[in-house]
């Protein structure tokens, strides 16, 4: 096991930089998830940690060892690839034992460790088969077996679940979490799926265009996003962003279409510094619902209803703003109906409309 220290890491292909000075300290035994849209550099970052891509600038440390120029095999890591990279001409047992064999382990040790790993992953009955005879989920388990059998300091996962269907993905997510709890090995995991990131990670690193946006616990990422990008990336349905104006006296906000809302105390503090200016207000769907006393009622019109069983999502219009809210399935919403909405403005986020950075996050 080992901590991973990334200091000011830069990657450029020729004159084109793709990672612009990322710093990231992953603790020993931590499950860190790198997440972001395609092209954000998350896979490149992972491959640099693995040693499959060269380092243009900065430092990568595994434990207390600087590994910048070490070949992958000397970094004591194991990696699970997106396509699993199982050798089609080798049996499952040979695939799992490959790393041990290459490092010159004796046949008895290889056999024992392969059996152990197969036991943990419940693939003992598949050891004699070829990868071509396995289902997607089974291949995924074999790929994980190949990684755990070597007992490396760090596991690297490169979008390991993206080739599975939704049901299997949930199952394998639990399996990966179990492996982490059992071995306690440091894991760096790349995905573009925010649900995977939220459910698996101790801490999530959100990348955008080769820059690190935020690196924090799932809870903090969700509740205190540092930018509109992070706020919009995490959470489903996504946060509503509303182009609003802070009242000159700082006592409220005006929405497009002339709807004036009084700001409760926490929001009043957040907009104190931008009185009279345009802001981007962020409000999660769970903070838009039917008016139930407390704050003032805001008139709205239902545009679209999406019943999901446990809850009902609805697109509503408030003044000139369209926003998604979460409602109880019993609320009986109909498209076209005029309703009284309750907005939990004390939970609203306020962002700078030009930079997208948060002005102050709610606690």
């Amino acid at each position, binding site marked *: 096991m080992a901590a991973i220290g990334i200091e000011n890491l830069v990657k450029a292909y020729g004159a084109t930089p793709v990672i612009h000075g990322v710093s990231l300290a992953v603790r020993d035994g931590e499950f860190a998830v790198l997440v972001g849209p395609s092209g954000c550099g998350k896979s490149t970052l992972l491959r640099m940690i693995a040693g*499959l891509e060269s380092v243009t600038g900065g430092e990568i440390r595994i434990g207390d060892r600087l590994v910048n120029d070490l070949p992958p095999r000397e970094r004591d890591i194991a990696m699970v690839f997106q396509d699993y990279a199982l050798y089609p001409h080798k049996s499952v047992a040979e695939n799992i034992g490959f790393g041990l064999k290459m490092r010159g382990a004796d046949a008895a040790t290889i056999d024992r460790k392969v059996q152990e790993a197969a036991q943990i992953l419940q693939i003992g009955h598949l050891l004699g088969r070829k990868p071509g005879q396995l289902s997607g989920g089974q291949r995924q388990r074999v790929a994980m077996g*190949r990684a755990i059998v*070597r007992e490396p300091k760090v596991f690297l996962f490169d979008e390991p679940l993206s080739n599975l269907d939704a049901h299997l993905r949930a199952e394998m997510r639990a399996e990966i979490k179990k492996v982490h709890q059992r071995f306690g090995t440091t894991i760096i995991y790349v995905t573009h799926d925010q649900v995977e990131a939220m459910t698996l990670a101790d801490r999530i690193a959100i990348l955008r265009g080769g820059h690190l946006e935020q690196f924090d616990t799932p809870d903090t990422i969700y509740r205190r996003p540092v930018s509109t990008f992070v706020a919009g990336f995490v959470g489903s349905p996504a946060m509503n962003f509303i182009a609003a104006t802070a009242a000159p006296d700082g006592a409220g906000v005006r929405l497009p279409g002339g709807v004036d809302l009084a700001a409760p105390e926490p929001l009043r503090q957040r907009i104190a510094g931008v009185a009279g200016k345009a802001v981007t207000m962020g409000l999660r769907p769970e903070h838009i619902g039917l008016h139930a006393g407390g704050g003032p009622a805001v008139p709205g019109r239902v545009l679209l209803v999406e019943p999901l069983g446990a809850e009902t999502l609805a697109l509503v219009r408030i003044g000139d703003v369209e926003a998604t809210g979460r409602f109880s399935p019993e609320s009986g919403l109909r498209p076209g109906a005029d309703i009284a909405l309750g907005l939990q403005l004390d939970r609203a986020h306020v962002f700078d409309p030009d930079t997208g950075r948060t002005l102050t996050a709610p606690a």
Partner: protein
Amino acid sequence: MSTIKHRLTPLERSERRLGFAMLAPAFLLLAAVVVYPIADLIRASFTFLHLAQPWMGNPFVGFDNYAKALGDERFLEAVWHTVLYVIVTVPGAVVVGLGLALLANKPFTIKWPVRLGLLLPWALPLVFSGLIFRWFFEYNQGIANAILRGLGFAPLNWLTDPTLAFLTICLAIIWKASSFVALVLLAGLQTIPKSYYEAAEVDGASAWQQFREITLPMLRPAIFVALIFRTITAIQTFDIPYAMTNGGPGNATETLAMYIHKTTVDFLDIGYGSALAVLMFIVSAVITSGYLRYTRRDPGRH
């Protein structure tokens, strides 16, 4: 599947007729240029047909021509030379071709010199390659002897010493054939996903281990294809020894195909030559079917 014969609907029957009609031109062409000549070759091999002895006519002689072949020392020598060419040039071309393919598969920034080097020998006509190597090894002007002289050694009789002539011809054949082998193997190499090598790299495999554990087993089907093609063309070896030594010295480098050519074109003994050609055809067919059976039985294939 039902065992009851499926009755065709009128539409299906008309579709089938159209299908046959569209295949007919290709079938007729193949019949004219492949099936008929082979059938006539087999017929001729059972007759006496010597263009220098027209008064003898074209009588049926049964297996006389085949019996004559088994007692013909020059024929047996030509067979032996052909076998030697196969034994030396098939593995030789595959090993050199594999090396070239691995080289060409490297991520060079400038790809054209490698590609040109790979394609040029393949694109050259066989006779032309033979002539090039003949000039290389020519006694007085050739580059091989020029180098030997430059290094202070005595020049060698490259093309007139039986053993050296055989070796230089093998060298020319390997040079010429390895580029085709390399093209086949390069196509095979490019189907191996890069992540296999990355996974092996992370798992601690050295370059040699990656070659042995991944490249070679995954290239097996392509190597078999290359072996089959190379063996068939090696059995038919003609142009390069024809251009380099014309079978000489004596008939020390003469192949089966060259002897058949001499028998029919130079000696005008069509009947006997046909019998020899049929024998060569049988040998090729037997070796090819052996290869095919082996690949089909191979459990490593997917």
